């Protein structure tokens, strides 16, 4: 629990990226990103596809291994090079319990019921008792409006319902930060709202969030800070009103012009 407390009481930036670089072969996707996310801040990353925003998000919990730079979560270095492979894996597993992630394709475990999906990691990873984890899971499912689906299998749910379960599953670990990777991009348009509403509630509760999205309305309404990325660089960042109403950079104007017309 001491590690948990460190995350709960950390006073500096929750996420701090310093000179983050990532290449796939000869293709440099992130070209030295510096970025800070404060506690309870909702930071929204926007930009054209291929700009590197998803890769950036996936580097934070080390689903992608960065090629250079530093990633600090609650002041702790994620991409340590001083650990042997097994110790490094344990280090990553521990940090990841504090970073909830929601994916574009939901990635619910299809062989488990909704409740089992939510309970799996708290029991298997955190070693919590089944009863306690189930009680928590039921509360979370109620919160995302799916209490009645606890015994359903993911295949029988709509995309929007699956994504809300995925959010509950991530929240069940009581993370300090939530990472959202284009979570509405695979949804039918009429199902986008129900997922965004859950995220909006979370933001209102003070959750620290990094959100990669194409939903400009959400970015403007919920974001504390908007980061516009293109070609592996941060082109412009600021409060939503500023970015959306008075973009300074030509590249930003062009992107917003394309997307909002």
């Amino acid at each position, binding site marked *: 629990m001491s590690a948990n407390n460190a995350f709960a009481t950390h006073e500096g930036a929750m996420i701090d990226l310093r000179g983050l670089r990532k290449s796939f072969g000869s293709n440099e996707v992130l070209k030295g990103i510096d970025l800070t996310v404060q506690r309870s801040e909702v930071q929204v990353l926007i930009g054209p596809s291929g700009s590197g925003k998803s890769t950036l998000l996936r580097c934070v919990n080390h*689903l992608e291994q960065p090629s250079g730079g530093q990633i600090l979560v609650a002041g702790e270095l994620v991409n340590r090079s001083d650990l042997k492979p097994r110790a490094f894996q344990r280090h990553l597993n521990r940090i990841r*319990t504090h970073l909830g992630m929601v994916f574009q394709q939901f990635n619910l475990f299809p062989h488990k019921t909704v409740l089992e999906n939510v309970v*799996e*990691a708290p029991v298997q990873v*955190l070693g919590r008792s089944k009863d306690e984890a189930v009680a928590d899971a039921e509360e979370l499912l109620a919160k995302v409006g799916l209490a009645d689906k606890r015994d359903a299998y993911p295949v029988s749910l709509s995309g929007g319902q699956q994504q809300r379960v*995925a959010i509950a599953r*991530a929240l069940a670990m009581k993370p300090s930060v939530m990472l959202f990777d284009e979570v509405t991009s695979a949804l039918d348009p009429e199902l986008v709202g129900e997922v965004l509403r859950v995220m909006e509630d979370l933001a209102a509760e003070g959750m620290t969030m990094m959100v990669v999205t194409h939903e400009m309305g959400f970015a403007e309404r919920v974001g504390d800070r908007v980061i516009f990325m293109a070609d592996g660089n941060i082109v412009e960042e600021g409060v939503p009103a500023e970015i959306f109403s008075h973009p300074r950079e030509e590249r930003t104007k062009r992107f917003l012009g394309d997307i909002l017309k």
Partner: protein
Amino acid sequence: MLDWSIIIHYFPFLFKGALLTLQISVISLILGLAVGLAAALSILSHNILLRWPARFYVWIIRSTPLLVQLFIIYYGLPQFGIDLNPFWSGVLGLALNTGAYNAETIRAGILSVPKGQVEAARSLGMGSSLTMRRIVLPQAMRLIIPPLGNNFIILIKDTSLVSTITLVELTLTAQRLIGSTYKPFEMYLMAAVLYAVLTTGSSLLLRQFEKRALKGAAA
């Protein structure tokens, strides 16, 4: 005309042979699954000390006949002081043989589980073995139970080759009874029927497993 009195009289002997065939099949099945899983995980491992030997094992078994493998184990190994009785020679040969085919089946099943499943598990702090055990293998099972069942049916029929290393299972029982009865058709027919009972029974049992493993899968 079939000689029914011979069939009725000798059925218990053949039934006993069939029980031995069943026994050797089940033990080889279990060992073959363990060997197959270990080989599949080794082949998928990053560690070349695991990967290369496992690849070699699968290659050598699949490129040589089971009959020769059994002869090497039963007649060849005693030269090196490894002297197994016919039963365990048979089990070893069959388990290694079916294990290599199982390894290929299991490997393909594991690879068919979408990468996003592993990423979701990892993002929740699950380690690699926990992810394999709780998330990947149960999903791979759905796809690999039918081909594994097929391997098992082949295994049951392949046990007849163990008759060549003097284990008196179903086929050798039939052969020996022909020596005293001079009724090859009746004896081999009974053996064939008993093999069919074993393989069909196994198929039905496997179908039940399959149904259980399929919960939550798309219709």
